[in-house]
């Protein structure tokens, strides 16, 4: 029974991946960077929204791996593709690969400095690996890219939470 399961699982992922690839609106032979992003998102959706909520971690991991390859190819095709970095960062984040998420979010903040949410997600990723000084630096950096007093107030609130935690 276990042997059968081991055999059928890769087959399941292969067939599902093929199905997703076929369902892609563009022909695979003319894949450009946008298609890699789109394809990657389809694998990501399959993993995160279909497999994980049903408790299918192994199946989800397989699709996450496929999504990772697609996002990496999109970035290889265009190293300034902010959308690809956002997708990659999110993928690492939900897989709790916070070190890699930090790298990807840091690039997003460089490519899209007006994206304040990316700075917060970068800071949040830093807190997950106990790099609090850099987390605060990311939040301070975000304040330089907005003049919305309400947003600055909230960023200060996050900085305070990190400081409070460090004092405990």
């Amino acid at each position, binding site marked *: 029974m276990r042997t059968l399961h081991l055999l059928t699982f890769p087959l399941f992922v292969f067939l599902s991946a093929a199905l997703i690839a076929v369902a892609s609106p563009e022909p695979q032979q003319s894949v450009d960077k946008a298609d890699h992003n789109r394809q990657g998102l389809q694998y990501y959706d399959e993993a995160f929204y*279909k497999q*994980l*909520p049903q408790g299918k971690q192994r199946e989800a991991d397989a699709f996450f791996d496929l999504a990772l390859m697609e996002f990496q190819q999109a970035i290889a095709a265009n190293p300034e593709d902010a959308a690809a970095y956002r997708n990659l960062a999110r993928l690492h984040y939900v897989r709790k690969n916070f070190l890699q998420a930090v790298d990807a979010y840091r690039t997003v903040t460089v490519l899209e400095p007006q994206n304040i949410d990316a700075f917060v997600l970068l800071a949040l990723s830093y807190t997950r690996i106990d790099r609090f000084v850099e987390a605060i630096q990311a939040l301070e950096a975000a304040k330089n890219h907005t003049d919305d007093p309400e947003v600055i107030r909230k960023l200060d609130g996050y900085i305070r939470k990190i400081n409070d935690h460090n004092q405990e």
Partner: protein
Amino acid sequence: MYRTAKKSSSAALSALIFSALILGLSPNCMAGDPHSAFYSPANDRIFWFIQTSDTHIGTSGSQDSNNLSWIVNQARSVIDPSFILVTGDLTDSTNANWFGWPDGPHQEEWDAYKNIIASSGIPEDQYYDIPGNHDAYNDQDFSYYLNNSIHGRATGRTQASFVRTFGFGTYHFLGINTADNTGDGFSLTWPFGDYAGLDSSELSFISTEMAKYPDSDLTMVFGHHPLFDTGNADDTYVYYGLPSFLSLMDQSYSSLYGYGHTHDASETFYVPDAGQHEGFHYFNVASLGKSSSNQYTIMAIDCNGLSSKINTVGSWPAVLITAPLDEGLGGLNPYGYAVPAAASNPIRALVFDANTVTSVQYRVDSSTSWFPMNRVATNPRLWEASWDAASLAAGLHTLEVKASSASGTQNDIIKVRIEQTSQPKQVGAAIAETGKYVTTGTRKNKVTTFQQATSFIQGESVIFWLQVSDTNSSPISGATVQLKIEGQGLGVTLTSTSSDSSGSAEAVWTTSAPNKRATGGTTPGTYTATVTGVAVSGYAWDGAANSATITIVGK
């Protein structure tokens, strides 16, 4: 900005399409009448339920899990509600991160949520959970909600529609999904990843379900978001689909919109700018997971009148006056009724406590004199008293009920409007005929007729035709009659259908036949059917216990 504009135009298009859709629906096909509430001594036309919201399972440093567990275990056991309705933000979507930044969905939070509910053993038809914005961030299709929530898993839908039917009426409840439909993640800038609203498919569901129950006495709707701007810039509210939704609320003559989201509690009444009806109660309950008080509401329907009390987790006793109705409910209650300045007015209150309730008392206008209330034998959570209001001046008065136990003392205070008029109009019911339905012929020639009779064979259905009229012998419609059947050691209570325009109503007693061994079944002998009450808005039963005698014979 582009995204917002895009959403707005798509929402506007949805609203347009939907408006065209609902214009085809006749308002008459919708149901509910909050004005059907009536003041009556009948103490068996009552049920109650709980609304709570914003459980936020996964919040850092809160009582989220403990409070949800308390609701589905202790509160459910003590209060014994007809159902519990949870209006969204079931999970926090933060998985306890320090910033409180919703970065989920997180399966860990949903697992914790599911485990709390599962371990309580609460059945699916007693627990309705609908999504909020925290259940929608980064999840456009509500996958985590649909795979993990109780209602989502049971139905595959993000909205709920259900009825509660009793001998005295049918009540329709809707749980609507006001959460964002874009799947955006949380954001520091407006609308904070929460472009809340009702799209055309959500509105279509609401419209269809409202039209499905034309005979319901009351319609009550619950959702996560406020419908309108709260004045707090951080509070999102229903940005699209609102005109269509308000139109549906008006057409269905809904009594209530109950919501959460703000983590504040309030009870107001919404008066529409336009529409056929007066509006609806607009109640906000605080957060079960994040607030420190006012985390759940007990609502009761007593003789079609709505009463409500917001309560705090762990605080007993909980007291809710259900009759007379609170004229001040929501600051303005057009669905209340005047109380006659009579010598024996009924007062009823629900009292819930984990400990034994030692006393329940009432007083009027903050008097120093308290009067005892008695537990209703057939409904141990309900207490009642007869109140002498004959000497009270016309106008508003306060009525307070307090309950005491080892847990402490709690109260409920309402406003009642005394009407200094003559005694209320009286209504009575006579048993005009008894008999049975007889079917003759076959197939196309099949005919069912009523046949008058006073003698019936075991297993037959005994039909009581009742004539409801006022003191001038004018027929009264919309009344239900209570009959008590007694004899051979049996005591059965029947409630009639609602009387028609000629004052006629029907009550059915289904007797049972003996089994194959010729044992059991309704005991043969003489039975007496007696009128024990007549309930209709604006009238009091005249107390005439008219009766009729029938005989059951062996098969």
